[in-house]
């Protein structure tokens, strides 16, 4: 008997759905990088669940051949965790915008990190709300003029990198479609990381975004962390570098916990195994209610 080993190439992950992003949107590059990363990993598309919230960026699962779920605004992470717990064998990807992840869904990020399921969370950080036509986002720089901040934003932006490092994230990286090879590499590394991985992608909005955030400008100023000699096992050094969010554009891995430890689903399986001996057949669930 011969076993057939399926080999996948990038286009096996590309669906027939035609993206409706504005021409020039950074998200085109993000989906390309994901195709590449998935091909390198080689999991069959039907074993991948790709979950997103709502926003331009959240359309991304539809452009892949994986099982996709384009859910409601801000709630991709809880749904993805339910999927992974229900079936730990699946490769589960989660994606969304900066608004989706750090405004409406901000409350979920800390807990996804704390629980540490083996998920890869990709934020397409364009510092603006694209889908609703150009309002302030939680990562918009202070002073930025948008449809909802005509006279300039009066709020400090959140720093997604520092946030997740502060919450205790075990894998934190940043990429940009201005550097496709680098982006595909961090996505692949994030997926391979055995635990919750966070990847911030500086994916520019060509329609409502600032000029200095566009791909061309990014290319000029991006600095690979590897070239700085940064040690990704050093959380404090990672936090130091993360401070530069909004001024510098570091790419690559900020932090990778060298001793990842068990994931939530590992612990769940362990508990199931421990307690299996105490299982009563379903027909006997009511026996617990027999008084003695």
């Amino acid at each position, binding site marked *: 008997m011969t076993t057939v080993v399926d080999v996948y190439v990038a286009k096996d992950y590309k669906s027939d*759905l035609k993206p409706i992003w504005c021409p020039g949107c950074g998200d085109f590059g993000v989906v390309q990088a994901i195709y590449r990363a998935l091909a390198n990993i080689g999991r*069959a*598309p*039907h*074993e*991948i*669940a790709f*979950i997103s919230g*709502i926003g331009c960026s959240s*359309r991304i*699962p*539809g452009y892949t*051949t*994986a*099982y*996709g*779920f*384009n*859910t*409601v605004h801000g*709630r991709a*992470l*809880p*749904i*993805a*965790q*339910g*999927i*992974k*717990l*229900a*079936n730990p*064998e*699946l490769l589960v990807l989660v994606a969304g915008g900066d608004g989706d992840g750090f405004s409406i869904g901000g*409350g*979920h990020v*800390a*807990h996804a990190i704390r629980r540490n399921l083996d998920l890869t969370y990709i934020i397409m950080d364009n510092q603006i709300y694209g889908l609703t036509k150009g309002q302030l986002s939680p990562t918009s720089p202070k002073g930025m003029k948008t449809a909802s901040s005509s006279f300039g934003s009066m709020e400090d932006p959140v720093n997604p990198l520092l946030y997740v490092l502060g919450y205790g994230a075990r894998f934190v990286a940043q990429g940009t479609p201005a550097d496709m090879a680098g982006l595909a590499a961090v996505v692949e590394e994030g997926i391979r990381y055995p635990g919750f991985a966070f990847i911030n992608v500086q994916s520019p909005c060509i329609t409502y975004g600032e000029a200095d955030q566009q791909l061309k400008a990014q290319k000029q100023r991006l600095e690979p962390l590897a070239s700085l000699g940064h040690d990704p096992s050093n959380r404090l050094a990672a936090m130091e570098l993360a401070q530069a969010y909004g001024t510098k554009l570091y790419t690559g891995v900020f932090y990778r916990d060298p001793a990842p430890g068990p994931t939530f689903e590992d612990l*769940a399986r362990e*508990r*199931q195994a*421990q*307690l*299996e001996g*105490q*299982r*009563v057949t*379903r*027909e006997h*669930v*009511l026996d*617990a*209610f*027999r*008084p*003695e």
Partner: protein
Amino acid sequence: MTRDLVIGMAGSGGDGVVAAGEALMTAVALDGYYAMLTKSFGPQIRGGESSCRLRVATVPVPSPGGTLDVAIALNWDDFLRFGGELPIGGHTVVIYDSATGVAPDQIPVAGVRPAEVVPVAIGEMARKAAGTDKAKNTIVLGLLAGWFNLAPQHIVSGIRKRFAKKSAEVVAQNERAFQSGLEYAEAHPLTSDCRLEGAPADAPPKLVTDGNDMCAAAAIFAGCEFFGGYPITPSSEIMHFFNREIWKHGGTMLQAEDEIAGIGAVVGASFAGKKAMTATSGPGMSLKTEMLGLATIAELPLVCVNVQRGGPSTGIPTKSEQSDLWQAAFSAHGDVVRPVLAPVDVADTFGVTIEAFNIAEHYQTPVVVLSDQDIAQRKESFDAIDTSVFTLEQRRRPTEDELRDYLRYRFTESGISPISHPGMKGGNYLAAGIEHNESGAPTANGEMHAKMNDKRIRKFRPLAGRHDLFVVDGPDDATLALVGWGSLAGVLGEAAAAARAEGLRVKTLVPKLLYPVAADVYARFFRSVQAGLFIEQSHQGQLHRLVRMFVDLPPGIESLARSGSNPIDAGLVLARVRQLARGLQQARAPMVEQVG
């Protein structure tokens, strides 16, 4: 001798009245009695006043009962704090700790003279027999066993089991306390005779539990493998039960960061192919609304339990109400039909929860189970349930053949399309909250939206014919009718039985499927009816108005609806039924004269 005894007890936190009630409940269940135990606490989390109410009978107990047959006060002030829940009547025997400083003729209950008032030095007896005030509740158990014939052997074996973990000395202390109460009762007989008849010798063994544990057990029986939730009174025990049991069945649970995440994880687990459930109460239900809409359009099965409490907002967390019906049925944007079911008592929670999973799986939809604090947190003893009568449904998966040109949302005659899940080769699709075509691809096409809405609503048509989800009782041609749901079903049955005993022709309807409204069932039921009542624990009479949206009711149908923490009892319903009957008679009288 009586076949039915209602006992109410109240005391301070340390008095252990609830523990005494629980011990009594177990003992009488072992004796083969039917019983119902309800508990009530003051606002303080620990150490405040608490009360319980136990109704014991030789026949199934339909409700907590009206005024007490026996009132036990370890402290009068604490007792009076539960005035509405522990009402004293002309037939009540009042037993209280004489150390409380109230004289028998001073028992301060406005306008009521109890049948008998018995001061007992309960605290002093406890100190003498056990050396501690803590044994007051065991003294009470002895008094009850002696005066009312309540399961002495089982109480003693209960004491042994309960304190076995502590020490032999504590067991002995409590046995002495029990004995001392028992002897006191035997030496000082009551004048009123309210000893309980013995349970039938062949009484089958009973089960004892509350609605929340029953709900979780039923879900596990139904094959639920995932629970996601967030603590909220009075639903949390459902999560606690899952946490203790689900791992043993290879399943998982998640205490999420909030209700949105709780139901989100459930939506995810369902998408991944598993039966999944969440449970919450009022405010949590509000938060889950957006996800319920998502599961509706993505056509994902799930069960969402709402253990109703007093609302709106934080309302009264520890008291029951039936005021979330409209929310369950309608809180969604867009065109949505969301099945809503309600159990009528603890035992019934088993079947109704299983039915909720069956409907969810079959129709690929979220289903809301509206339990209420009363059912959820009261304990009942009931006959063993034959689990072999339940069938379990699984969502319809695509066959190998169907996977060859798979369309997740394929238009079928029934509106139900086979559902795949990640891991299933060839079944890959995009689920979404956004409108989609048959394959799942997003669309903003109005015609497609109309067709999809039609598919999603049409599929529920067979539910209208589910007569088995309605309980009709009484003469088919009765002119008087009672309708009620949830925990009030028992009250309604009790009132109807009393009315029939008075010669009134009354029939009852108890819907367990509340929404979609099965118009035919109501129309058929009301055909012979000239006057009737919808009995509900809400201010606006939510079921009455909901049914009227879909059914033309006869003119004499009224609403008996009341919010507030004091439940509607059978006496109140009976009084209204008599009124309706008189009204019908008067209306008929002039007709007779005309004919003559």
